[in-house]
């Protein structure tokens, strides 16, 4: 049996220009986020309980190998770096990780951090679960082994409520950084880790991947029809919507699928999404 942790090499403290919002990486503070380190600790804990082996997989640049060796010093049996250019979309990252997890490692349970430190969306675990055909339990705030190969987790819900979830192998879970603190490596293991081997496999860059974003993220512009009317005041009144009755906020209680549809409809109504049939 094998438990795999997926980790992302990211700049944990990039410099952000307060005026322009440009993000500059110095390379000095590169590492794995607290959520990813928690994922490794969870993987180690689960594997200890099951007598399983632990592998760690990182889709990232060669610099990540130093970090992977440190993880080997804390007890990870096997480290694989998937050679992938930075700033790939989540689909491409998951598409590169999935064959490694299934074919190369034959992982039964995959543990990820719930989001990456560099503005990631946290959607890689969901894509992975989809590609691996695995059960998923994402954004967990507590994890424990469930039986011989399952994971029992606690998920945060709105309003301070919690949800207990169980995922059976093959499973992909993602955890918050607060779930566990990564153990410290012994001195002997740290000294030995310098020579540890990191396997490198080529990634699958997404040919459709957008060019790396260089400006801060902003919501898509909304199309607004020009105001009508001959009088400037009329047009300003129309533009500001000063005398227009507003749609009051509404609370809906729906099944998840219907709720998702309602959110999409509303976003379309506001102009943030294209109407159905046209590409987003």
């Amino acid at each position, binding site marked *: 049996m094998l438990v795999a942790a997926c980790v992302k090499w990211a700049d944990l403290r990039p410099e952000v220009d307060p005026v322009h919002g440009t993000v500059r990486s110095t390379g000095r503070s590169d590492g794995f986020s607290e959520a990813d380190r928690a994922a490794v600790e969870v993987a180690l804990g689960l594997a200890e309980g099951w007598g399983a082996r632990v592998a760690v997989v990182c889709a990232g640049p060669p610099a990540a190998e130093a970090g992977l060796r440190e993880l080997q010093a804390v007890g990870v049996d096997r480290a694989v770096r998937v050679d992938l250019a930075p700033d790939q979309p989540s689909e491409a990252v998951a598409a590169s990780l999935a064959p490694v997890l299934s074919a190369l490692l034959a992982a039964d349970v995959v543990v990820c951090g719930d989001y990456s430190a560099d503005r990631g969306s946290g959607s890689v675990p969901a894509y992975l679960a989809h590609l691996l055909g695995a059960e998923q339990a994402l954004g967990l705030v507590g994890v424990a082994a469930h039986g011989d190969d399952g994971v029992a987790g606690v998920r945060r819900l709105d309003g301070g409520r919690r949800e207990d979830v169980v995922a059976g192998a093959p499973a992909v879970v993602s955890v918050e950084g607060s779930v566990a603190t990564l153990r410290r490596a*012994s*001195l002997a293991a740290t000294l030995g880790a310098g020579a540890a081997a990191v396997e490198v496999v080529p990634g699958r860059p997404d040919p459709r991947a957008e060019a790396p974003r260089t400006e801060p993220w902003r919501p898509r512009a909304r199309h607004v029809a020009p105001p009508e009317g001959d009088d400037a005041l009329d047009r300003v009144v129309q533009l500001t919507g000063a005398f227009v009755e507003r749609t009051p906020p509404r609370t809906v209680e729906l099944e998840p699928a219907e709720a998702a549809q309602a959110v999409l409809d509303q976003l379309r109504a506001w102009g943030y999404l294209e109407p159905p049939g046209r590409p987003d």
Partner: protein
Amino acid sequence: MSNVATPAFGAPDFDAVVVGAGPAGSAAALELARAGRRVCLVERGPYPGAKNMYGGVVYGRILDTLLPNWWEEAPVQRWVTRRQTMILTETAATTLDVRNEAWGRPPYNGATAYRPDFDAWLAQKAVDAGAVLVCSTTVTGLLREDGRPDGKVVGVRTDRPDGDLTAKVVVACDGVNSFLAKEAGLYPTVDPANYTVGVKETIALPRDVIDERFGVRGDHGVDIEILGCTGDVPGGGFVYTNLDTVAVGLVLSLPELSRGDQRPEQLLARLKAHPAVAPLVEGGDVKEYSAHVIPEAGFDMMPELVGDGILVAGDAAAMCLAAGIWLEGVNFAIGAGAAAGRTAARAVQRDDTSAAGLAGYRARLESSFVLADHRRLRDAPHLVMGELAQQKMPRVVNGVVEELFTVTNPDPKPRLRTILRRQMKRHGVKWRDAVKDGLRAARTFG
């Protein structure tokens, strides 16, 4: 921290353990590795230089023998071609301005550099030579032979699980306030009066603005040392130019600071608002505020440098030279670290790392600039931190200059002698004290 027992048998893990990957530690590890010894360099920060701060200028001459042509690859910000010594009162400034284009060409003189860059570069040289670098690992104590408190030092204990590391010799380069030197019993007493605290702001400004404000071009930079800018607290100030940041800071007497009601950041804000300094730094973004203790008293506070199985180098042995117009610690740390590394390598080769086997370290330092300069300038820190230099001299100097250059027509110009006498009287400087300190200064600096 405690003295811990060690196994009585078994080969040590390394020939030498060097604690601290600052300039002293990396130089020591480099020399040990080059001599073919198995050396482990232990650093508490996540990478060398992560924990370190200073004003900003490295004097690289000491690197000539260690790393020939170091200037071709060292991570330098700017080469210092302009040095100023500024004497301030609240509203006035008198500046000695030295410019030397030769300092901007190989083999250069001083360079501004960021410590995370510089320390990581130097540590990598030690690693390239064969040293094993372990980061994120704090040494928490010394291992003694047979666990006896007075036994020979035979290694270190770290904060990692199973964290004992045995070695034939330990080189303590753990910086000011060295736990290891204290635990080894090498510091007889620790007097806070011997320490200052340095505070610094790193202020971002566009490169061309720095060039324009400081009157330099290309990769040339400026080093300004300042006296009379610390109010009632004895100390001094500095301004250094990096490529697109300016470092502005103060060095302040620790006991006076803790006694008075002035906070370092208030004093620093006052320096930044001074009419001679404000135009240099205004409009910039403060990117970083940092503080660090300095072993100010130099030769007079140095510990024993050698113990049974242990050597101490750099700030751990109070080797920073803080003598008013000079604030040099990195070059002294490299010089001492290299000497410690060479001594340790020889002692390991002769299989005698006892205090007697390591005694050559002191002799090496005495014959180099490290102890020669410290011995000659031992009075300088006391002179610079004294009342005359701190409070009265800046007022007299600025008063004299003001009178000298204020045109008083229709009165005739006063004689310099008259002005000096008048200013000394106004600021309560007695001829006797001035002559006494003048002679001390002549003996020290002359």
